[in-house]
C-alpha cells in the first residue's frame, strides 16, 4: 500500500514536468519574437529590450527551461511584466476568493448531484428520472455566464435576496462571506452538478442490477439502507473519478464566474493578465491550476481503496 502511494506520487512528477514544459514552451511556439509578442503593439523598443532581457532570450532554450524550472521548484514563479511584482505574490493575494468559490461549489454540487442521481436511478423511468436527465442536458448546454447572469438578475436585481456581485473575505464574518458566493457557486456548479448527477445515475443503475442488491432486498433491508449503504458505496469509484475530472470544468468556469460576479480572484487575475499580455502571470496561474488538478486526481486515486477494499495495490 505505502509502496503504491509512493509509486503513484512519483508518477505525477513526469506529468507535472510535461505540463511545465508545455507552459514554458508555448511562448516560443508562437510565431515571431516572444519579447515583441508580450510587449504588444504599443511597446517602445526599450520595452521589448527589457522583456527580452527578463526572459533571458539570449541563452539556449534548454538552459532557460532548466533555470526556470529550478526557480519554480523553489516557489519563484517569476516577475509580472506589468506590475513588476513577483507572480507568486500576486497569486497569493488572489487565491482566497477562488479557493472559497471552488470549495463551496464542490460541496454544494456533491450535496445536490449525488442524491439527485441516486433518486433518478432508484425511480428509473419515472418523471423524477426524466426531470433529472433533462436538467443534466440543460446543465451541460447553458454556459456558466448565462446561468450567472440569469441568477443574478432574478435573485439579486429583481428579488433583492442576495448581493449582485462582489466578495467579502471570510474574516469579515461567515454570512457576508457566504452571501456573496451562493449565486456564483450555483452558476459555476450547474455543469458540474449535471455531470455528477448523470454519472451517479448511470453507475447506480448498474449497481442496482447486481445480485447482492437483490439479496439485500430479500433479507428485508429498507430501500434507504440498500441505496446508501450497499449501492452508493459500490458506485463511489466512478462517481469520485468524475468529481475529480470535473474539477477541470470548474477551473475554466471560475475564470468566467469571477468576471460575471466581480470576484477578485485568480480568474480575474488571468483575465487582467490576458488584456495586458502579462505572460509570466498567465504561466503562473496555468501552472498552479494544473498542479492542483493533478494533485486532486491523485488524492481521488488514493481514495479508491477506502471506497472499495477490493482494490489493493
Amino acid at each position, binding site marked *: 500500500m505505502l509502496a503504491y502511494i509512493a509509486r503513484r506520487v512519483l508518477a505525477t512528477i513526469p506529468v507535472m514536468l510535461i505540463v511545465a514544459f508545455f*507552459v514554458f514552451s508555448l511562448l516560443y511556439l508562437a510565431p515571431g519574437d516572444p519579447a515583441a509578442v508580450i510587449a504588444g503593439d504599443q511597446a517602445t523598443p526599450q520595452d521589448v529590450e527589457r522583456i527580452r532581457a527578463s526572459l533571458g532570450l539570449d541563452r539556449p532554450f534548454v538552459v532557460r527551461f532548466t533555470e526556470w524550472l529550478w526557480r519554480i521548484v523553489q516557489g519563484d514563479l517569476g516577475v509580472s511584466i506589468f506590475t513588476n511584482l513577483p507572480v507568486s505574490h500576486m497569486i497569493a493575494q488572489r487565491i482566497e476568493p477562488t479557493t472559497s468559490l471552488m470549495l463551496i461549489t464542490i460541496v454544494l454540487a456533491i450535496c445536490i448531484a449525488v442524491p439527485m442521481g441516486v433518486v433518478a436511478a432508484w425511480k428509473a423511468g419515472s418523471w423524477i428520472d426524466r426531470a433529472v436527465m433533462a436538467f443534466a442536458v440543460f446543465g451541460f448546454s447553458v454556459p456558466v455566464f448565462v446561468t450567472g447572469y440569469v441568477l443574478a438578475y432574478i435573485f439579486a436585481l429583481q428579488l433583492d435576496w442576495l448581493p449582485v456581485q462582489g466578495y467579502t473575505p471570510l474574516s469579515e464574518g461567515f454570512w457576508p462571506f457566504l452571501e456573496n458566493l451562493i449565486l456564483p457557486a450555483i452558476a459555476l456548479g450547474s455543469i458540474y452538478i449535471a455531470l455528477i448527477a448523470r454519472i451517479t445515475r448511470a453507475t447506480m443503475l448498474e449497481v442496482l442490477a447486481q445480485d447482492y442488491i437483490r439479496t439485500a432486498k430479500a433479507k428485508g433491508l429498507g430501500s434507504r439502507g440498500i441505496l446508501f449503504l450497499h449501492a452508493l458505496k459500490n458506485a463511489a469509484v466512478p462517481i469520485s473519478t468524475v468529481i475529480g475530472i470535473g474539477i477541470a470544468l470548474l*477551473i475554466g468556469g471560475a475564470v468566467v464566474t469571477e468576471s460575471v460576479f466581480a470576484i477578485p480572484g485568480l480568474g480575474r487575475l488571468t483575465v487582467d493578465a490576458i488584456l495586458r499580455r502579462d505572460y509570466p502571470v498567465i504561466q503562473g496561474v496555468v501552472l498552479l491550476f494544473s498542479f492542483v488538478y493533478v494533485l486532486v486526481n491523485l488524492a481521488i486515486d488514493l481514495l479508491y481503496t477506502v471506497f472499495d477494499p477490493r482494490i489493493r495495490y
Partner: protein
Amino acid sequence: MSPDTAVAAAPAAVDVFPAEVQRGRVRTFIRRHPTIALGGFLLILMVVLAVFAPFLGTSDPQALAPARRVRPPSDVHWFGTDMLGRDVYSRVIYGARVSLIVGLSVAILASAAGLFIGLVSGFIRVVDGVIMRIMDGLMSIPSILLAIALMALTRGSVQNVIIAITVAEIPRVSRLVRGVVLSLREQPYVEAAIAAGTTTPRIIWRHILPNTLAPLTVQATYIAASAMITEAILSFIGAGTPPIIPSWGNVMAEGRALWQVAPYIVFFPAVFLSITVLAVNLLGDGLRDALDPRLAKRI
C-alpha cells in the same frame, strides 16, 4: 378508358405512394430518435439563420449610431441596441456564423488529429508510452486555460481561436481512439486478419477505422458543443475573436458593463448560444443512443 389516360394515371399513383411512405418514415424517425430530431431541427434552424443572415431583416452589424445608444427592444430594433447604437438583433444573427464555424471546424480538426494520433499510438507500441504521457500532460491543463494561454500569445482571430481550442481538445480524442484501437486489436477478426497476412495499413483501413467512426462521431458532436462554449468564454473575457467580429461572446462582453440597466444585450446572445449548444448536445446524445448502444447503457 383509353390507354392514354391509364398511362397518365399510373405515374401519379406511383408518386403519391412514396410520399405517404416518406411521411411515415419521418414520423417513425422522430418517434424513435426524438433527441436527434429535436437537436437536428434546432441546429438546422441556426444554420439557416447564419447562412441567410443578410436577408433576415438585419442591418449592418457594425453600423454605429451614437444617437440610438442602449435602446430597449422595439419594432425597429428587435433586440434593442448596444452602447454604441449597434443593432443587437443583427449582431446576434451574424454571431451564429462565428459559433457554428468554430464548433464545426474544431470538431473536424480535433477528430482528424485525434484519430491520427490515436491510431499511431494504438498501433506503434514504441511511441505509445511517449505519446500518451504527452497527452496526460496536456490533459492536466484544464482545456479553457490551455486555450487562454495560447490565445494570450496570438492576435485574436477566428482562425487562432479554432487552433487554440483544437489543441486543447486533441488529447481526449486521441485517448478515445487509442482505447478503441487497443480493444479492437484483441478481437478475433483482427487476429485472423493478421494471421492471414493482411498488411497493417489495410487492417487499419478495413477493420479498425470503420469501428472507430461511431464513437468518434459522437465525441465530435460533444467537442463541437464544448468548442462553441469555449469560444464564447474566450471572447467574453477578451481573449477570443476580435471585437470587430460580432460573436455571441463579444456581444455579451460588450453588454457586460451595462447588464444591470440593459439586460437584453446579454440576454439574447446568451439564449442563442444556449439553444445552439443544447441542439448539438441533444444531437450527440441521440447519436450515441443510436450508434453506440453499449455506451448508451453505461452513461
